């Protein structure tokens, strides 16, 4: 007798659990508002990427066209596949002291694996992740970028910011 009870218990238990699964999918089927897919080319104007998204390496400049890169070259050393080249030069500042500034911070997007070692190791926080991801171009050379803008200069660290 117990065997028969177990048998029908199995049958009804199976139907119950299958019905529970069908309820979940049925709920999604009749609720198109649950759709998570984004229609990409249509929504590109209002598309907001996540903060952690690694689109490309950029060098932010402030309103005075100044960046924070000291040209130390740590990013270049840390890059595992040689995507970064820094061309720096020595100048004499108005105080008469010799100073190193970057001439060109070259970033090869075509070689970058987006590992983030350069950004993690930058002592001056001069480079950050950008959110731009539409990188398709017709010529590979267009993927080689100079990150510092023309005629930009280095942001001088004030005493307050040094303390911070």
């Amino acid at each position: 007798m117990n065997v028969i009870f177990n048998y029908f218990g199995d049958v009804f238990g199976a139907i119950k659990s299958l019905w529970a699964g069908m309820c979940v999918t049925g709920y999604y089927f009749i609720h198109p508002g649950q759709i998570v897919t984004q229609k990409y080319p249509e929504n590109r104007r209002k598309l907001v990427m996540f903060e952690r998204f690694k689109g490309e390496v950029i060098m932010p400049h402030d309103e005075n066209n100044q960046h924070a890169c000291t040209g130390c070259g740590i990013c270049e050393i840390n890059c595992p596949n040689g995507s970064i080249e820094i061309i720096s030069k020595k100048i004499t500042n108005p105080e008469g002291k010799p100073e190193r500034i970057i001439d060109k911070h070259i970033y090869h997007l075509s070689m970058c694996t987006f590992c983030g070692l350069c950004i993690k190791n930058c002592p001056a926080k001069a480079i950050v992740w950008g959110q731009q991801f539409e990188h398709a171009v017709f010529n590979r050379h267009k993927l080689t970028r100079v990150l510092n803008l023309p005629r930009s200069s280095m942001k001088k660290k004030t005493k307050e910011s040094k303390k911070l």
Partner: protein
Amino acid sequence: MNFSIYDFTSFINWIDNSLNSYMSPGWAILVELVILGLVFIAFYAVIGLYLVLAERKVCALIQNRFGPNRVGPIGMFQTIADLIKLLMKELIYIKHADTFLFNIAPFIVIIASFMAIAALPFAKGLHAIDLNIGIFYMIAVSSLGVIGILISGWSSNNKYSLIGAIRSGAQVISYELSVGLALLSIVIFSGTLQLSGIVESQANGWWIIKGHIPAIISFIIFLTTCTAETNRGPFDLAEAESELTAGFHTEYSGIKFAFFFLAEYMNMFILAALAATVFLGGWMPFHIAGWEGMNNVMDYIPPVIWFFGKTVVVILIIMWFKWTFPRIRIDQILTLEWKYLLPLNLMNIVLIAFIVLMGWYIK
């Protein structure tokens, strides 16, 4: 000639008589067969293509996606574009394949489903052939397709194909029993094997309502087994993409692959139409005895719409199964059939015979 969308008998007779008045009876039958064949080919292509699209849309909605939405409005022409692509693809020649069997296998599969569609009553008087053993014919013909699957697996010279074909054989031969027995329950209720007779017997209510609990059990068993019969998920072991690449049609390309694909969807349509005809009243409108007003409103909707509406509902349920349940193993499939569905079905048949004997159903 008075043509009506509620009764096609006069329309069919008019075609028959006018053909017979132009030519000898032999030629008239030949022309009728050609017309019928063309109509069914067109029907086949349209239904097959739109079922594929419907499946992709249903699956997308269940998985919180959009599905095809680029070719035409809401992706209407996606499958037509796919078909054109498949037509232009190369038919790849397989080394050491049994060429003759390899080439005829897709045709066997598609002819089997083609034969089954002939017996379906689409509306009053609108069926290609009204056999007095309609259900028996449908069961017999719908199991022919597995021969094509076995041949394709055997002749492909590919171990994946062979495993897929053998699995499909074991599965279809097992589930054939339950399909037959589930349909037999309604045959006991209605007392006829003729599909049009079964539809006529549901004029005062569908069998799933008139036959109450045992008919509902039969309906559930039939839905389960016809999902297995058509090799669809969760019983899609014969193709099992994750294990066997594509199972029996791994080596097929181009239009031969499209034949297998179309036949799978048409088999689903045919079994859903059979379920609708036998359990849900076919083209018969929804009637409740005594409610004359509602019955008249229901009669106003054309039978073809009733037939396709019911079929679409059954198809949606089968698709819902596929996109909810994970694929089960071959031993689980055979356990389900031989230890659960078949004994339950036999008990159900005995119960129905008793109920019919005592007259405990809604007459």
